[in-house]
């Protein structure tokens, strides 16, 4: 099981100043690896949505990435309030974001559905009062 690359980013909840910075850096890393640009686009869109969810809802979190066996795996893990109803949260347009977040262009209720849309395999686990973990796998070939 050869690992081509791996690494992680730490995300601070509420840090809108640096919103998207980790995903943009991830895009540079994946581009430098010479991966297919359509695969990169799907992966970093999913990562960006997850990064924004951590910034909007959580206290803190990490984005980890690894390429193994022809697949890119991105894991987003946060310490935060968790999600009470995952099925509802996966509904396009459903959002619990406050108005000030919407005024910044986020919280439209598209984040989790868009992460799923761009992943070949999408899994989400959440514990209310503890946090949420999302795993995205994009097959590279």
């Amino acid at each position, binding site marked *: 099981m050869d690992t081509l690359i791996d690494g992680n980013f730490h995300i601070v909840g509420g840090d*809108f100043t640096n*919103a*998207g*910075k980790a*995903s*943009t850096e991830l*895009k540079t890393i994946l581009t430098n690896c010479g991966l297919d*640009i359509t695969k990169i*686009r799907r992966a*970093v*869109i999913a990562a*960006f*949505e997850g990064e*924004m969810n951590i910034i909007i809802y959580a206290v803190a979190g990490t984005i980890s990435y690894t390429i193994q066996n022809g697949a890119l795996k991105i894991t987003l893990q946060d310490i935060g309030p968790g999600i009470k109803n995952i099925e509802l949260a996966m509904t396009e347009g459903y959002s619990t974001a406050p108005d000030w977040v*919407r005024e*910044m*262009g*986020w*919280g*439209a*209720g*598209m*984040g989790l*559905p*868009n992460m799923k*849309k761009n992943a070949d395999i999408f899994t989400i686990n959440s514990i209310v009062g503890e946090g949420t973990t999302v795993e995205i796998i994009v097959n590279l070939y």
Partner: protein
Amino acid sequence: MLLKEIISVLEARAIVDYTTDPNKDYHWVCATDLMSEVLFYSTCQSLLLTGLAKAQTIRTATIADLGIIIFTRNNLPDDEAVELAKLKGVSLFVTPYSTFTASGKLFGQGLQCCSDINLTQED
């Protein structure tokens, strides 16, 4: 519609111009202030029309591979956004028209909403 024609119709001016080809042809527009909609609906052949002149708009465009942003109603990007656009090679323009009017002008010239691509695919 050629980029130079879009710029002319919208009476737009360049803030950061990395465009090497004013004759590049565009067919799709993503017109929204919601960055999640940009990520959900845009294609890398779209140009972005928005009133949200923030650094996060540049980051969103970078992630979504959008090379052109046109800010509406003379919303000028702040210094952070301009510097980020220069760093990432994103061209920024500003038009005096509102997002509604600018969208209407481009629609009238035959450009389409990028989310219609998905509707077409679903049909």
